């Protein structure tokens, strides 16, 4: 019942530990921040041909989507929206002319979304004209203003990024002093660790980055990367993609040594490229004031009421009547087999990696030159060789201290580019978790008659009619979407949440239309006329697996003390179901603190062996 488990993830210690890895980053290394610095000059508001949205409109749509995604995925990140080249000025000390701070650096909330909505579309352009207008441009002042936004922040910032959106490759009409000032301010910002990106938009006659902006933006991450996209963004999707690729700081979950054998060690960063996004946990609020409420947990001695420090407590498990006690440290130590790291066992052909050997989402590794120099070269050599020979590397993997080992397959991944030459899949190794013997269940296969060629061919036609190109980002999670729409509705005082489109539902009508008579033809081939697959299965279904489910629930058992004592003596209480145990506890007036099975058993054992 893994499905139900998902809801109660927090009950599972191990899952919690994992969660700590992703969420914990913020607490430890500070927050990410992102400033959108948007050109508000007249040129930005010119509409494209055929009624295409203006560059300004496109930028705002893009900014809005970043805001909403931040709210959902990383609500602690700070975002600011600043316009420059405006007529009006609005900034903290109003010391800069023609710079309009629309949103100060802060974690985005519902009001921010509403504010941005005002700037969208035709009406948005009018609203912008009215509130900000277009005026003189000084990028230097704008950058200076942004640098003040950063320094006013009391929080520790881990990653600082500034994105300039403009369609003008030349800003100051040949005013060399202003150009110089902009360069100086950009240099200052970069000095303090701010990464400056240019999101340049279409300009009639082409956008020439080398005119001015090449001195403003940060140098590319590595020399081979083209850093400045030669082509400006034409379409919203392109812009969104480009922004999204930059907007998220990649964080390694951990950095580990990857040992090939005696003394040959490289360093790798471990990354999570896919992780099940879950509903965030609820926050407790005070009923009267809606203030957040914290919980404090204390342990104290039941008899003398003294506070118990960690040293005053031990850990215990009970088996039958035997209690086994250990120190907390010992409990941790049991899980320790070796230091964290990846240790190479050997190599296997890719076809030895079975499709059904799957227990967890994969991780990704990439070399860490900053830890061990030479790692990247060695890593690349391994990657090229494995990929050429179609092999995977088998490794023993220990992610953290006091964590038992797992075996993983390192599957080589060469870099893949999409049509617009942006990276679609990064180069590195995918880390696929392999199951141990315990993780593989014994399943008694159902063996039945197989289909004839004619039947298979008919199904092939059906498959052919319903084929589509699967894309991993094509499906939104309806549960999460609904949750956030609900919150949005409550936060923004909407009458009801915006409806979601549930992409996980089959488009039945369309499928039926595409299939036409094929479905019936197939049924005629495989099912006899009187067969109804939707009907209740035959009564004899009651085999071992399904045995007694319904009746069990109804079975209200009054058990005699004798019987129970017998169970206690034989240690077979565990075989009784929780409802039966609960009834038994009630029957003897035993008060139990919990409802976990073991607690009930312990309570009964204690009572009856007196």
């Amino acid at each position, binding site marked *: 019942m893994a499905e139900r488990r998902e809801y109660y993830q927090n009950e599972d210690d191990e899952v919690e530990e994992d969660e700590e890895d992703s969420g914990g980053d913020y607490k430890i290394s500070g927050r990410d921040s992102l400033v959108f610095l948007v050109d508000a000059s007249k040129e930005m508001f010119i509409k494209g041909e055929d009624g295409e949205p203006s560059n300004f409109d496109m930028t705002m749509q893009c900014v809005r989507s970043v805001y909403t995604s931040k*709210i959902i995925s990383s609500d602690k990140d700070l975002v600011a929206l600043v316009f420059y080249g405006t007529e009006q000025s609005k900034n903290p000390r109003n010391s800069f002319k023609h710079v309009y701070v629309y949103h100060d650096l802060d974690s985005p909330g519902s009001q921010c979304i509403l504010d941005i909505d005002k700037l969208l579309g035709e009406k948005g352009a009018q609203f912008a004209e009215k509130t900000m207008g277009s005026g003189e441009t000084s990028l230097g002042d704008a950058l200076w203003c942004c640098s003040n936004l950063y320094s006013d922040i009391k929080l520790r910032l881990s990653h600082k990024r500034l994105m300039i959106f403009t369609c003008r490759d030349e800003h100051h009409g040949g005013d060399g002093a202003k150009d110089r000032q902009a360069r100086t301010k950009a240099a200052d910002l970069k000095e303090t660790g701010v990464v400056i990106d240019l999101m340049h938009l279409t300009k009639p006659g082409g956008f020439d980055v080398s005119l001015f902006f090449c001195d403003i933006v940060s140098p590319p991450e590595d020399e081979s990367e083209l850093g400045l996209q030669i082509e400006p963004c034409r379409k919203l999707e392109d812009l969104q993609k480009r922004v999204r690729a930059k907007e998220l700081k990649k964080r390694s979950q951990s950095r580990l040594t990857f040992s090939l054998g005696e003394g040959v060690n490289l360093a790798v960063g471990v990354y999570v490229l896919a992780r099940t996004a879950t509903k965030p946990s609820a926050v407790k609020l005070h009923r009267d004031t809606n203030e957040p409420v914290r919980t404090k947990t204390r342990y104290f001695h039941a008899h003398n009421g003294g506070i118990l420090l960690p040293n005053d407590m031990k850990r215990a498990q009970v088996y039958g009547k035997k209690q086994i006690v250990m120190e907390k440290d010992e409990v941790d130590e049991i899980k320790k087999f070796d230091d*964290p790291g990846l240790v190479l066992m050997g190599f*296997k052909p890719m076809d030895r990696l079975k499709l059904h050997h799957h227990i967890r989402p994969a991780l990704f590794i990439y070399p860490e030159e900053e830890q061990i120099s030479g790692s990247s070269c060695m890593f690349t050599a391994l990657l090229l060789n494995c990929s050429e020979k179609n092999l995977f590397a088998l490794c023993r993997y220990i992610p953290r201290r006091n964590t038992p080992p797992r*075996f993983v397959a390192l599957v080589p991944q060469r870099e893949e580019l999409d049509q617009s030459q942006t990276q679609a899949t990064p180069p590195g190794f995918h880390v696929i978790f392999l199951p141990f013997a315990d993780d593989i269940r014994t399943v008694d296969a159902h063996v039945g008659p197989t289909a004839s060629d004619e039947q298979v061919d008919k199904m092939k036609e059906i498959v052919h009619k319903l084929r589509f190109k699967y894309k991993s980002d094509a499906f939104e999670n309806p549960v999460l979407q609904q949750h956030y729409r609900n919150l949005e509705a409550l936060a923004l005082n909407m009458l009801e949440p915006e409806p979601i489109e549930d992409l996980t539902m*089959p488009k039945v009508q369309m499928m039926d239309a595409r299939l036409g008579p094929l479905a019936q033809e197939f049924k005629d081939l495989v099912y006899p006329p009187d067969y109804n697959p939707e009907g209740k299965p035959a009564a004899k279904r009651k085999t071992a697996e399904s045995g007694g489910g319904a009746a069990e629930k109804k079975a209200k058992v009054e058990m005699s003390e004798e019987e129970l004592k017998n169970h206690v003596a034989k240690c077979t209480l565990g075989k009784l179901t929780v409802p039966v145990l609960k009834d038994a506890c009630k029957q003897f007036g035993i008060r139990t603190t919990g409802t976990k099975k073991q607690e009930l058993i312990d309570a009964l054992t204690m009572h009856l062996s007196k």
Partner: protein
Amino acid sequence: MCFHLFLSFILQSALVLCMDVGFSMSNSEPGQEPSFEQAKKVIQKFVQRQVFAENKDEVGLVLFGTDGTKNGLAEDGQYENITVHRRLMMPDFELLEEIESKLQPGGQQADWLDALVVCMDLLQEETMGKKFERLNIVLLTDLNVQTSADQLDVIIDSLKKARITLQFFLPFPVDGEDRADGGGDGPGPSAAPVRPGKGLSRQQTQGLEMVKNIMTSLEEEDGLEEVYTFSDALQKLSIFKRIDRRPMAWPCHLTIGSSLTIRIVGYKAVTEEKVKKSWAIVEAQSHQRDDVKRETVYCLDDDNETEVQKDDTIQGFRYGSDIVPFSKVDEDQMKYKSDGKCFSVLGFTKQELIRRHQFMGSQVVKVFAARDDEHAAVALSALIRALDSLKMAAIVRYAYDRRSNPQVGAAFPCIKEKYECLLYVQLPFMEDLRQFTFPVLENNKKFKPSESQLSAVDALIDSMMLVEKDEDGESVDVFKVNHIPNPQFQRLFQCLHHRGVNPDDPLPPVEPWLKRDLERPQAVSARCQTPLQDVKTKFPLKVVVKKKEQKTSADRGGFDNRCFVTLTACQQLTHRIEQLLGNRSPEYYMKSIACIQAFRDQSVSSGNAELFNSYMQSLKRSVPDRNLQELWDLLIQGKEQSVCYYEEVQAAPVQEDTGDVDDLVSVSCLFGCFNDKHIIYYICECNSDLQVY
């Protein structure tokens, strides 16, 4: 009454361990462990696992070759030297202790067929009127005794009738042939290295024939797969295979469009097995759980930490920077509702478009046609075969039941020699994916490996292949992860067992064989020595001496844990200071100063002054804005008592501020010395008052 009781039982298995303790079992060739010891270990390990995994299966223990006789069939000199040591019961700690201390080699020999009959009798008698899912007898013997085969057919017949399955564990393999792995699904037996048939006594050869006879008549061609060697059993989980509880059946309908429906049943085939039992907290002296009371209180985030009753709290969710009150009732009413279990095809796609590394979730479900429904079987078979020949997969919406979240996943065709099924795996939602861009590796001049480097790695890979060709040219996987039991469980059970028997001993070291299981196979290790040396000389790998500020959270995984502790502590401290400063009154100032001092000590002890310095700079800057002059004066007042200041802290980045920041040292005298642990503890756990010092 009886009827009700029976229904409240979970269906389970019963198993009788039947071990030969006769004198031949104690013989051994020099340097080898006697069969008796090996068999005892197998039993011990099995029972250990049953006990600590709290398995509900019932286990009995029958010994033969014992000096005494104790069984229900013994009469007139028949069935002698066979002892029913324990009737069917859930294995408990007592049984473990008994095996350890009382299971001794006997001085007699007994017919293993007789022992088998005693076991059958025991099973039948004990399971009368109860329902068991599986009945199994495990025989551990060296077959070195004269047996009378005249009853063999009767025995086989009654085994079949009672649906009792058998497993044999012998010191030698059943035959020399390499039994190929049975499809790669389960932990199957592997070829044993011991020489077959060589050096067997006449009785053993004869016994082996009888074993083959029984096993093949019980299970036809697969029968011999249930004959293991002792060493097999120690490494793998062979005994468990037989009595494994089968995963729950999940009946559902596979639908394609509105009118095409196939009745199916799903089983969870692969999923991560976790440690089930959690640790309770007990008082250190009394070892009593009741002596520890846990109290959780709710309090406001104000300075008095005003307590709030649980009933006065409601739930809310963060929406960006806002917290939206959203009661459980409203949430339930407004949340996404699925319309129950389903397995609906959304469409079909090329298998190559589904990337292995994008598999999500924690399980693989095998989907079969409903049992005993041949029409469903044909329909599903058509789908499986069509997909297989087109190299396509179905993309489906999967919902386990009404209460569970729907998933999108892929159903792949899987055609085995004996059966066909679909393999279902969850795929990601858009929200699950993170688009990270990484710098280019391959065409990066800086990292491009040279031809000689590439060939060195090439040679290393060749020397480390884990798949080898055997004499017949078949490739053999020498390191099958799916045959290795999870060492975590074995280690936990070993420690529990040890502590249970010896409460005052320290924990034992990891068992050597368990460690060995996790190492590179020896042959591979030996083979790769030279190529590895070559790689070592061709690739300069140098640990970069890290500058302090580079340490971040990510390092705690492998490199530095200490820094993590410090950073969190500092974070908590600054948070606390900021909290205290919100309240401008002298008593709070003293607490703030205590915190600042603690912060400074932390910084000094971790050799990382930047955090502290930059915080102090910003605090100083904020003095006018926040009206904190009084506090600042207090901090500076202590200047006269100044103690030696550490170099790191002096290396403050902004020169003109150094003087003031320097003054802070003074306060250390007021508060004496702090212990790091205490600071952290009190700030996390009590959070109310710092005067506890």
